[in-house]
C-alpha cells in the first residue's frame, strides 16, 4: 500500500487525494475479482468436499482433472440465462435486493488485512465496522423475500433475518475477549498482537478465548445461513427460501454473496483468533497473504465438513442454542477473559 502511494505520488505525479482515490479503486477492483474467484473456487470445492464426504466423486468431467472447470462453466452459462422478474414482484426492490446483499459483504471485505499494510479501508473501528455493515445483508434478504411476493421467499427471508440477527450477538460477544487483549479494534492491530508463533494466537492465549473461538465458529455458520443451520433455504419446505424467484445473474449475486460471506466469516476467524497473516512457526513469515488465505480456506473446509456431516436442526432448537446456550457462554467468556487477564497480569 505504501509502495503504491509512493508510486502514484512520485512517479505518476498525482496529489495526495488523487493517489488515495486511485489506490482505493485498485484495491476495490482486486477485492471484487478475488470475491468472484472465491465463489467459483468454493462452489467447486463444496461439491468435491460433499462428494468425498458421501463416498462419491462430485464433478469429474468438465476440464478433465477432477472437473475443475465445472464452476467456471456454470458461471459462463448463468450469464446467458433469462432474467425473469415475476409479474407480482415489487420491481425496484426486487432489483435492488441482490445488490444490497452483495454490497453488505463486499463492504465488510474492505477491512480485511491480507498482509501488513495491505488493507483497502484501514479503519480504527475495523472489527466493529465489519459487524455493522454485514447487517446490510439481513436487510437485503428481507427485501428480497418481501419484494418477490412469494410465500416461500417471504418465510425464508423472515427466518433468515431472525436467525442472522440472533446469531450476530454471540458473534459479537465472542470477539470481545480478543479486543480486551488487543485494546484496539483496528484489524491490523489485532493481527499484529498475535505475532510470534502458534502459541501467541488468541485462540490459545487463555481457556476463555478457546471457548470463545468455538462459539464464534458455530455462530458464523448460522450467520452465513449454511447447514446445519440453513433454515432460510430448507429445500424440503421452502423450495429455495428468499431467492426462490430469482434467476440468471440476479440469482448469481445471491450465490456470490453466500460464498463471499462464507470466506468473510472464515477470514474474520483467522484474523481474530488464528493469527492472521503470521505463520505458525515464528520467523517463517515470508508470504503473509498466502498464509492468511491458506488458513481462511482451511476454515472454509471446516465449515463445509460441518455442513455435509450434521443434519439440519429445527427452528426452535436453533433459537434455543443461540439464546440459552451461546449468549450466556459468550458473556461468561467476556467476563472470564477480563478476570484471567487481571489475575495473570498479562498485558499486550
Amino acid at each position, binding site marked *: 500500500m505504501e509502495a503504491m502511494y509512493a508510486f502514484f505520488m512520485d512517479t505518476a505525479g498525482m496529489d495526495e487525494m488523487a493517489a488515495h482515490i486511485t489506490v482505493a479503486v485498485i484495491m476495490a477492483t482486486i477485492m471484487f475479482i478475488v470475491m468472484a474467484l472465491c465463489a467459483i473456487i468454493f462452489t467447486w470445492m463444496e461439491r468435491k468436499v460433499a462428494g468425498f464426504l458421501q463416498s462419491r466423486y462430485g464433478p469429474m468431467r468438465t476440464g478433465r482433472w477432477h472437473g475443475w472447470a465445472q464452476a467456471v462453466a456454470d458461471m459462463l452459462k448463468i450469464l446467458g440465462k433469462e432474467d425473469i422478474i415475476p*409479474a407480482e414482484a415489487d420491481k425496484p426492490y426486487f432489483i435492488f435486493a441482490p445488490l444490497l446483499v452483495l454490497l453488505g459483504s463486499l*463492504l465488510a471485505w*474492505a477491512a480485511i488485512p491480507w498482509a501488513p499494510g495491505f488493507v483497502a479501508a484501514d479503519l480504527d473501528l475495523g472489527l*466493529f465496522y465489519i459487524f455493522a455493515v454485514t447487517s446490510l445483508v439481513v436487510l437485503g434478504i428481507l427485501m428480497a423475500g418481501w419484494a418477490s411476493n412469494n410465500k416461500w421467499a417471504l418465510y425464508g427471508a423472515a427466518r433468515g433475518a*431472525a436467525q442472522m440477527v440472533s446469531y*450476530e450477538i454471540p458473534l459479537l460477544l465472542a470477539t470481545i475477549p480478543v479486543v480486551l487483549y488487543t485494546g484496539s479494534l483496528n484489524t491490523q492491530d489485532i493481527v499484529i498482537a498475535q505475532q510470534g508463533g502458534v502459541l501467541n494466537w488468541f485462540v490459545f492465549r487463555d481457556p476463555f478465548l478457546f471457548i470463545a473461538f468455538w462459539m464464534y465458529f458455530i455462530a458464523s455458520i448460522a450467520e452465513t445461513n449454511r447447514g446445519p443451520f440453513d433454515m432460510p433455504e430448507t429445500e424440503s419446505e421452502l423450495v429455495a427460501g428468499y431467492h426462490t424467484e430469482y434467476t440468471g*445473474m440476479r440469482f448469481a449475486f445471491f450465490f456470490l454473496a453466500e460464498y463471499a460471506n462464507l470466506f468473510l466469516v472464515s477470514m474474520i476467524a483467522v484474523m481474530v483468533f488464528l493469527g492472521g497473516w503470521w505463520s505458525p512457526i515464528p520467523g517463517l513469515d515470508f508470504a503473509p497473504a498466502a498464509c492468511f488465505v491458506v488458513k481462511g480456506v482451511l476454515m472454509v473446509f471446516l465449515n463445509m465438513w460441518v455442513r455435509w456431516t450434521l443434519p439440519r436442526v429445527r427452528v426452535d432448537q436453533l433459537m434455543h442454542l443461540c439464546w440459552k446456550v451461546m449468549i450466556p457462554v459468550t458473556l461468561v467468556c467476556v*467476563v472470564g477473559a*477480563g478476570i484471567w487477564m487481571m489475575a495473570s497480569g498479562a498485558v499486550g
Partner: protein
Amino acid sequence: MLEKYLPVLLVLAVAMIFAAVFLGLSFWLGPRRPNAQKNSTYECGIPVRGSTHIRFFVRFFLVAIFFLLFDLEAVFLYPWVLLFQPMLAAGQGIFALAEMGVFVLVLVVGFVYVWRKGGLEWQ
C-alpha cells in the same frame, strides 16, 4: 477521518459498477421471452393460493427486540473494552471490571427474567 472512510465509498462505487456490468452482460446475452405462466409467482407448479403478505409470527418481533437490546449492550461494551488494558496497567483493573460488571449484571437480571417468563421459547 474523511480519507479513512473514503475507500468505503469507493468500494461501494466499484461494486455498483461491476454489478451493473455483469447485469448488462447478462441482459445482452440472455434471451427475453416472457409469458404469463413464466412470470407468475412460483408455488411449486400449482395455482397460487391466497395472499402472500400474511401476518408474521409474533416471535420474530420479539427476536428483533431482544437483538436490539443485546446489540446496544455490545455497542456500550466496545468503548469500555478498548480502555481495559490502560486501566489494568494503571492498577484500576478491579474498578474497570466492577463498572462493566454492574452494567452486564443489570442486563443479565432482565435476561433471566425473560427466560423464566418463557420469552425465549420459540413455540
